[in-house]
């Protein structure tokens, strides 16, 4: 009995240390973001700043084009998320439920494109967008991320598990496939749609490499790019930088905590069947 108790205590200690490792850095960054002293390198490093202040958060808003970056991030993320959910569901439905010539070939091509590392597409995608005069425009930021194969695949897997007789009654009634999709399939696939939405949201909110390449004026930057561009300039103003990073993290964090359940579902379904 005693041994089990000891084991349990040890286990809790390990758990505690691990937790500190995983969230400690965020707590420190939170603490620095409230620091009134710009020199964050004074040892001993104290966890609670002596002169806590909201000034850094105010300055992020007033001194940086934070509002504009926020707008860009929200615009890009919203459009990409809606688009991904809609088209992934539509395409997933098509692959799971409709028969048409070339279905297998198209699906195989789609799947194999998953094997191509994104970095290969960097240069050609840039040249294509340049030909379309879309560099440094919302079009250039948004268009390449409107659909994703992973999401289509996820939705197809989900729809495949739904029994066939579901749509048959509707077909007898002469419903079009779009109505079947819209009125029967979409309503029952909320968890899968939520998973796609959350993943797309997170990915597009945090996206860094593509905005780095496709934008060049400050007013087109998204939040991560904006903050990263200040990394060298503000190296002497860590509290401001940290306040900015905290602000960027809040939306993903909030969504994650609220919709945790779907996150877990999404990972497991893509994980097990991938």
């Amino acid at each position: 009995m005693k041994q089990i108790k000891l084991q349990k205590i040890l286990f809790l200690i390990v758990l505690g240390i691990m937790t500190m490792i995983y969230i400690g850095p965020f707590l420190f960054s939170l603490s620095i973001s409230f620091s009134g002293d710009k020199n964050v390198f004074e040892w001993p490093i104290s966890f609670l700043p002596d002169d806590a202040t909201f000034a850094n958060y105010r300055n992020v808003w007033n001194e940086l084009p934070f509002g504009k970056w926020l707008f860009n991030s929200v615009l890009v993320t919203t459009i990409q998320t809606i688009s991904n959910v809609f088209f992934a569901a539509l395409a997933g439905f098509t692959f799971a439920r409709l028969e048409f010539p070339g279905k297998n070939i198209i699906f195989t091509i789609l799947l194999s494109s998953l094997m191509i590392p994104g970095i290969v597409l960097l240069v050609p995608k840039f040249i294509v967008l340049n030909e379309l005069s879309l560099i440094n425009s919302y079009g250039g930021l948004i268009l390449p991320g409107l659909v994703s194969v992973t999401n289509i695949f996820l939705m197809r897997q989900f729809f495949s598990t739904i029994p066939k007789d579901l749509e048959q009654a509707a077909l007898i009634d002469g419903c079009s496939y779009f109505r079947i999709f819209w009125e029967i399939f979409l309503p029952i696939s909320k968890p899968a749609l939520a998973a796609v939405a959350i993943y797309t949201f997170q990915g597009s909110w945090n996206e860094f490499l593509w905005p780095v390449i496709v934008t060049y004026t400050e007013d087109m930057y998204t939040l991560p790019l904006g903050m990263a561009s200040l990394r060298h300039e503000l190296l002497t103003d860590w509290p401001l930088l940290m306040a900015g990073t905290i602000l960027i993290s809040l939306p993903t964090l909030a969504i994650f905590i609220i919709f945790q359940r779907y996150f877990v579902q999404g990972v497991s379904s893509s994980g097990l069947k991938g």
Partner: protein
Amino acid sequence: MRISYFIVLVTLCFSCSNEEKNMRFSSWQSSQTEEKIVRETLESFKKVYPEVAFDYQPIPGNYTEKIQLMLGTGKAPDLFWLKGSTSPAYMSFNVLYPLDSLISATPEFDVDDFFPLFKDAFKYNDTYYGFGKDFNAYVLFYNTEMFEEAGLTSPPTNWEELVTYATKLTKDTNGDGKTNQFGFVVEPTIDMLMPFAYQNGGELISDDNEIKIGEPAFIEAFDFYINLYRTGIATIPSNQGAGWNGDVFGRKQAAMIISGAWLIPYLKESFPDVKYKVAELPMGKYKATLAFSTAYVIPKTTKHLDDTWKMFSYLAGKKGMKEWTSSGIALPTRKSVALENGFYQDSIFSVFMKSVVYAKLYKIDLKERWFDESEAAMQAVFYKGKEPEEVLKKLAKKLEKYKLN
């Protein structure tokens, strides 16, 4: 739903292919002070030329890459700053607008008013492509309080004194066994090493396009430079958690640093209690320092040439430059402005004016990658403990590849 989607897409595509209506001007943003002065100068421009409609679009972070992208995609701003160090590559790409005809049509622009060092700085194949908006030069900043404490009355004037002074000024002031006040700060970047190389009679690339960085004069200078660090009388910014040497100086962790005039507004704003003076760089075999100049240039693709030239000739002209440099953030490339602004009398700025007489311009006739290769070499010496001789000789070979035609 789908329909609204397409509408969004279509509007997006339309909105982005819109022609730019106004003339656009871009600069980098190295500090908020600088941005403020840019905006003020533009306000004065507006008063003189109210008919010119323009947009100011500063570019924070990765300036060179971004400007390059804009040039490559045909969307460059009509007027922008070009770093002198990489300007030859751009001029060789044939993407900039040749200015000769504009200059001859505008006699009041007065090209001969520029200091000799800067007049032809942005000339390539006998064509003018830009003019220096201002200049800066490396000089020595020293903390007068620390000097007094160490019993030193004047700044070092040569390499030997630099070493002895720095040694005296390196201390452990709080007695924790670690040095917390350094005599000097070195940075692992090529441009801070170059003044030492020039002082020793070396150079990176000669006028007739020969790579000289692997020769003894340069190597000796690097040996001297790195030994300041290795003997512990100089530190590097990252060792102090600082972004650059000005930060180290401001925090009173170093008694002397090499910097340009950009340090002055920074100290005033962030570290007003630091007491310092400015002196010419200590000399080696020769007196030498490095001068920086950034040019205003116009891309070939501009569609607002008239408006752009108005702004160009104002900003690089006598009036605009006078206002821009009166803040002291940088120094004028025009003789008349230097006189009018009283830079020869000012105890700080006169040092820069003296330095410009013997300064060499930081402008390297190599493809852009020369810089990263050189930085890597500097880092190999600083962080990997390699010897300058080995590293520079290797670098010299590599740089051969980056010659411009």
